[in-house]
């Protein structure tokens, strides 16, 4: 039994999440307690499985899992390499606290226990999609998981049934489906050029024939860039994100902002680095494009965030800015910059979920959504606001917080490739982050307002936020394990 579980861990992680997702609606009508337990158990399976796979990869190296015994050109293959394991750990560490935070009061947020059961179905489906995306090595398999993730994300945005959230969800659906169309067309062109869908075979074939079809490959690359760019909200294609992430219920916005957009970046990394290969897409000029897009969305997202007066909208725009860092790191394209960008994925996931969960607690306790009306709340909700402050400092990139490690590695990488502009943009982005986050902290602590009836949230909602905030500080002080994983992932992407 133990041998079967340990040799099939990758597929079991995804299957447990999918099965429990579809079991939840059965229990949600009468036995809501089972819904809670099943969600927590399947999330814990994800965390334990992720850590086990990471240990296996760090000790014995990467390996492939062949589904059903059908060898690669015919069957599907899952890859357990540093990149996928890194993302599985990210998903597990961030989604488990979000699930625990959302369990006690989801029923009143989405009007009824029955709908809450469906909410957790979508929640687990979304996470299963993200895990499948990280594992899959087949282009079409990747597309299917992208669609699972996208559709469940759209439904999560619409979960609370209010006018604003349904409108935002429709906008998100139209944009995201446009993106899926571009991705599928790109996959079609890749299949026409190479006759394969397995990424390793595609790359082997492309290395031989790409000089014969440079224009077709160019079109495929730009389709992938536009498709994944829409889904991960890179600057000119970001218009759906602020509405969707600010209108959704709190756990959904934390999940979407912290994990979903990063999942699509992992998809882009897999397509560009594993299926196409770093030499070919650099020769096509895609990495220059990634660098420019990253810089523009970093600066523009930060400036838009500065001009927002609503708490959740400001956080949503800051997501666009922080994803700019990841694109910039990938565009610089040396080992330090890529490992910094990957570290920024986990660190920003933790930071943004703390910020959104804390903001949700503050909004639900005070009933205020404007930043200017939060005066004096720091004294009434000391723990929530303390977590918010720690996350703000980490976002700015203060040493000993996790945001620093990723940015430091990216600056090292950009200096290594003599790209002064990128280094300056990274530092300016940090200053702008201080500009849009610290005023919230100042208003909350140092201004006095009418806060007589506000009290701290219940313990079950406080502990997950504090645990996430503790991870920000732990990864900031002891980043070595995660950094080792991201370094190995970067080496694998560049030299394999």
């Amino acid at each position, binding site marked *: 039994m133990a041998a079967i579980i340990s040799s099939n861990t990758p597929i079991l992680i995804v299957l447990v999440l999918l099965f429990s997702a579809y079991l939840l609606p059965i229990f949600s009508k009468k036995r809501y307690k089972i819904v809670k337990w099943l969600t927590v158990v399947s999330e814990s399976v994800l965390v334990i499985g992720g850590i086990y796979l990471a240990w296996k990869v760090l000790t014995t190296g990467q390996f492939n899992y062949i589904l059903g015994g059908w060898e690669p050109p015919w069957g599907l293959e899952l890859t357990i390499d540093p990149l996928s394991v890194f993302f599985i750990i990210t998903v597990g560490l961030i989604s488990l606290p979000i699930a625990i935070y959302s369990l006690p009061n989801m029923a009143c947020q989405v009007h009824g226990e029955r709908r809450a059961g469906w909410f957790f179905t979508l929640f687990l489906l979304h996470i299963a999609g993200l895990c499948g995306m990280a594992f899959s090595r087949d282009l079409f398999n990747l597309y*299917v998981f992208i669609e699972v993730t996208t*559709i469940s994300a759209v439904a999560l945005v619409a979960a609370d049934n209010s006018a604003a959230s349904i409108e935002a969800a429709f906008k998100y*659906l*139209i944009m995201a489906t446009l993106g899926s169309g571009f991705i599928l067309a790109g996959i079609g062109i890749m299949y026409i050029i190479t006759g394969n869908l397995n990424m390793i075979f595609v790359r082997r074939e492309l290395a031989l024939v790409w000089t014969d079809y440079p224009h077709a490959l160019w079109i495929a690359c730009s389709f992938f860039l536009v498709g994944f760019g829409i889904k991960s909200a890179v600057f000119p294609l970001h218009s759906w994100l602020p509405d969707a992430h600010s209108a959704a219920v709190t756990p959904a916005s934390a999940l979407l902002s912290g994990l979903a957009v990063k999942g699509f970046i992992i998809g882009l990394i897999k397509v560009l680095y594993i299926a196409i290969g770093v030499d070919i897409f650099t020769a096509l000029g895609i990495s220059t494009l990634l660098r420019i897009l990253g810089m523009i969305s970093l600066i523009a997202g930060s400036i838009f965030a500065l001009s927002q007066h609503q708490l959740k909208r400001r956080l949503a725009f800051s997501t666009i800015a922080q994803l700019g860092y990841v694109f910039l790191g990938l565009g610089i394209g040396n080992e330090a910059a890529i490992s910094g960008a990957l570290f920024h994925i986990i660190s920003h996931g933790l930071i943004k979920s703390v910020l959104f969960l804390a903001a949700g607690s503050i909004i639900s306790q005070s009933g205020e959504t404007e930043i200017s009306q939060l005066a004096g709340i720091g004294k009434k909700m000391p723990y929530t606001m303390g977590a918010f402050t720690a996350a703000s400092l980490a976002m700015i990139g203060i040493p000993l917080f996790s945001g620093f490690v990723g940015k430091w590695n990216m600056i090292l990488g950009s200096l290594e490739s003599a790209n002064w502009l990128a280094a300056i943009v990274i530092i300016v982005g940090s200053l702008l982050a201080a500009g849009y986050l610290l005023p919230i902290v100042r208003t909350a602590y140092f201004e006095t307002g009418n806060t007589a009836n506000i009290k701290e949230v219940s313990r079950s909602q406080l502990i997950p936020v504090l645990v996430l905030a503790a991870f920000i500080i732990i990864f900031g002080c002891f980043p070595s394990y995660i950094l080792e994983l991201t370094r190995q992932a970067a080496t694998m992407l560049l030299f394999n």
Partner: protein
Amino acid sequence: MQTIIAKLITNYPYVGAFILFGIGCFTIIVNSNLLKKLIGINIMESSIFLLFIAASNIHGGTAPILDPTNPEAVYINPVTTALMLTGIVVSLSVTALALALIIKLYRLYGSMDAHVIFMKRNEVQNSGSHNQQ
């Protein structure tokens, strides 16, 4: 120039697929009616199905079922057909979700036009903030 035109004529399914893709994108972006946007999505996805199916088609080929009496038969690649069945399922579920959202929006705002919905929402927001002041 003539060679390019000749290539375009021989590969007419690809040309058709990309024209349809353009029409679909254009419909999504330009039309403000939500239902027309959804139709645009469906046109775009169908164009991609056409691209995949055309890629594996062979003139005069038969379905890939082994025929011992005719060893010289040319078979069509079945992989893309199977993939597009999955693609159709995905497109169906997207359409269903979008229709559900359109029905909800129509009940809430009494319109299916994006501009009208935008204006009504702004009115609601302005009057809401006015009441708070």
